[in-house]
């Protein structure tokens, strides 16, 4: 009896498993594009990066060097300069961009006429390609030929050598970032237009002034959007590359021709960012093992901010639920 019963169970189980297997295989098949993409473009490169970070790797030959690349990081002054610069941009540029984007969006929402025109005007700079925008900016501020120093000088005001002076180069890049704040402005604009009008009416009836309305009504309602802008801003700034590279190259006057040398981060390393140093290590100096160490650090820091962002979204979803 028991044998029969077991036999029945034994006979029935494979049929169910086969069904499950078929279902699993189908699911796997549908998942395969993502699985392949994830493996080839994320998992494999990440594992390879970890593997290469313990090697001297010049793109052709691999030599195990243990922790040499990690130890070199501790002695690489330029890497620490790049870290300090990137942190400066995170601490100064990101909050200023968020504040400026929000301020411009506030102004644009309050306009009585020409709303479309001003929205377009403020948004347009963010459509300018990064290289072109940076080139234009450096030429505008060029102490020799730029119109901005000429105007300041005409007014009797001093004008710094923006991208030629180590103390002014990062503020110059910040100005450039504020000029192209249109992307953030659009997001804030959408969020501000979503704030229920009756909340303002109620606040006004309670005697709240404009600042109180902003801090007690607007800001709490659009808080998730501000948080999103701040965290994505930090992640983007950790990868800040093109503007710094172009500005320093143009300001230094270095060309790509044989015989001339471009000093990354000109002047005095003040515009050297972490991703830029990573790029030079890997693709100019062929120190790919060390570049992998820098890439892993960048990945880890970016991951922390991504997790903060995900946590914020989870919190938001729970609040809504």
């Amino acid at each position, binding site marked *: 009896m028991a044998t029969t019963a077991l036999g029945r169970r034994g006979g029935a189980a494979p049929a169910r498993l086969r069904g499950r*297997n078929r279902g699993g295989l189908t699911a796997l098949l549908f998942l395969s594009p993502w699985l392949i993409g994830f493996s080839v473009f994320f998992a494999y490169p990440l594992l390879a990066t970890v593997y290469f970070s313990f090697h*001297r790797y010049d793109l*052709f030959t691999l030599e195990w*060097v243990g922790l040499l690349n990690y130890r070199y990081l501790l002695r690489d002054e330029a890497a620490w300069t790049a870290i300090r610069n990137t942190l400066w941009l995170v601490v100064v540029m990101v909050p200023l961009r968020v504040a400026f984007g929000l301020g411009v969006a506030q102004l644009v929402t309050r306009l009585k006429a020409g709303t479309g025109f001003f929205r377009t005007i403020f948004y347009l700079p963010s459509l300018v390609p990064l290289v072109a925008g940076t080139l234009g900016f450096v030429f505008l501020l060029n102490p020799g030929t730029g119109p901005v120093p000429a105007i300041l000088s005409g007014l009797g005001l001093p004008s710094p050598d923006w991208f*030629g002076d*180590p103390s002014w180069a990062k503020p110059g890049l910040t100005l450039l970032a504020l000029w192209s704040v249109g992307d953030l402005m659009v997001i804030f604009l959408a969020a501000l237009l979503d704030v229920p009008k009756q909340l303002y009416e109620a606040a006004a009836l309670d005697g709240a002034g404009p600042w109180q309305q902003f801090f007690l009504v607007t800001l709490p309602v659009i808080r998730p959007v501000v948080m999103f802008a701040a965290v994505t801003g930090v992640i983007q700034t950790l990868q800040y590359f093109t503007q710094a590279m172009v500005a320093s190259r143009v300001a230094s*006057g270095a060309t790509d021709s044989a015989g*001339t*040398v471009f000093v990354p981060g000109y002047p005095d390393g003040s515009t050297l960012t972490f991703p830029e140093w990573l790029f030079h290590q890997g693709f100019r100096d062929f120190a790919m093992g060390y570049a992998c160490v820098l890439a892993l650090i960048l990945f880890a820091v970016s991951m922390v901010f991504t997790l903060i962002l995900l946590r914020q979204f989870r919190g938001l979803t729970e609040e809504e639920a």
Partner: protein
Amino acid sequence: MRSRLLPVAVAALALLAAACTAGTENRPAAPQAGSTPDRTPVTITMWHGFSADSEIKAFDDALAGFRAAHPWITVKTTKAIQDDQIIQSVRGGNPPDVALSFTTDNVATFCKTGLFQDLKPYLAASGVDEAIFPKVVAEYTQYEGKRCVMPMLADAYGLYYNKKLMDGAQPPKTLSELAELAKKLTVRDEDGNIEVAGFVPSTQMYENAPIHTGVMVGAKWINPDGTSAIGADPAWKQLMNWQKDLVGWFGHEKLEKFRKSLGDEWSADNPFMKGKVAMAVDGEWRNAMIAHDAPGLDYGTAPLPVADDKPQLYGAGFIAGTVIGIPRGAEHPDAAWQLVKYLTTDTDALVTLSNALRNVPSTLPALKSPKLKKDPNFQTFLDIFANPASSTLPAHLNSVFNQQTLSDAQIKWESGRAADLDELLAEVDTTINEKLKLTAGG
């Protein structure tokens, strides 16, 4: 299912690993001396960096001689190629048969990694007499005993001077004379802004890179073991102090403002061609550019001025040039060698290229060829190239990094943002030596 998936996964990983392997070894047997080349029709590919129509025409003209002498070899060329593309093609296992690079900065990496094949067996088998090249050429075409590229045309650096602005003054032969003349020829407006500079001493000024100016004081870059010789060589201090003094005379801010108002180095707005600068360090190619963009300019050329206490250096200069080789994995290395040999050793080919591109032909016989177009201004550079005291930046794994590190220090020093030159150069040494440990070990 697991048992079926496992081999598939292993095979896929193996395929992925194979795809990610850096190029393939395809070393041909070394050619034998005196052997007759195989004359089976073959098509070879060649990548070069020329892009302007005039350059491409000059290169095609030079190739015409090769085609006539080697009718069984068809050469397919691809223009406007950079080193990055050559590297990727070798990594991808699909390199051209012949590749040309405009910079010598990567030669050490090319040789060390085997990215370009060692040409010594080919040179020996072909019986090429290496004495046709000035000795300095060997320093930038080989690394640790491997000659993985050959020189195809060279660049020499000297002093250009505007005769009208010089107003009868002779070109300076020493740094003191250069500084004195630079001050004398400088014109300022009533606010002290520079309108015409006698000479711009800034490191960032066009061709004033330390590889070119270091020759003026006979400065050394590296020790035989590859470590930095910069801090210990008083010549660098001599050069940097001279630069800083002259920058100080102009006023750093005024000079930077002037420098940043100047036109593009490679355009017709070049300040020397526009008469905004009386004297400038530049390569021999500027002659062709002046002929094209400023034909009315009355100018002369001379060797670079040298340190007052080293008059024996006068006449020498910095030498580098275009290099050409056979990448690893080239499909037709023997036919490729025929082309490399032709473009780097055939006098007529080099003279054709030199006459069209106005670069210095890279062999001594080509320098003496009666077909070579010469004029006094170009002759200066031919003499610099042939001068046995002329020098180059020896091939080094961190060539660009080393130059960047010293340039950075020079910029800090001349701007007054560094207080102690000894300390600054000691930092340069440390940075260069640490990087050497990272990339080369030791």
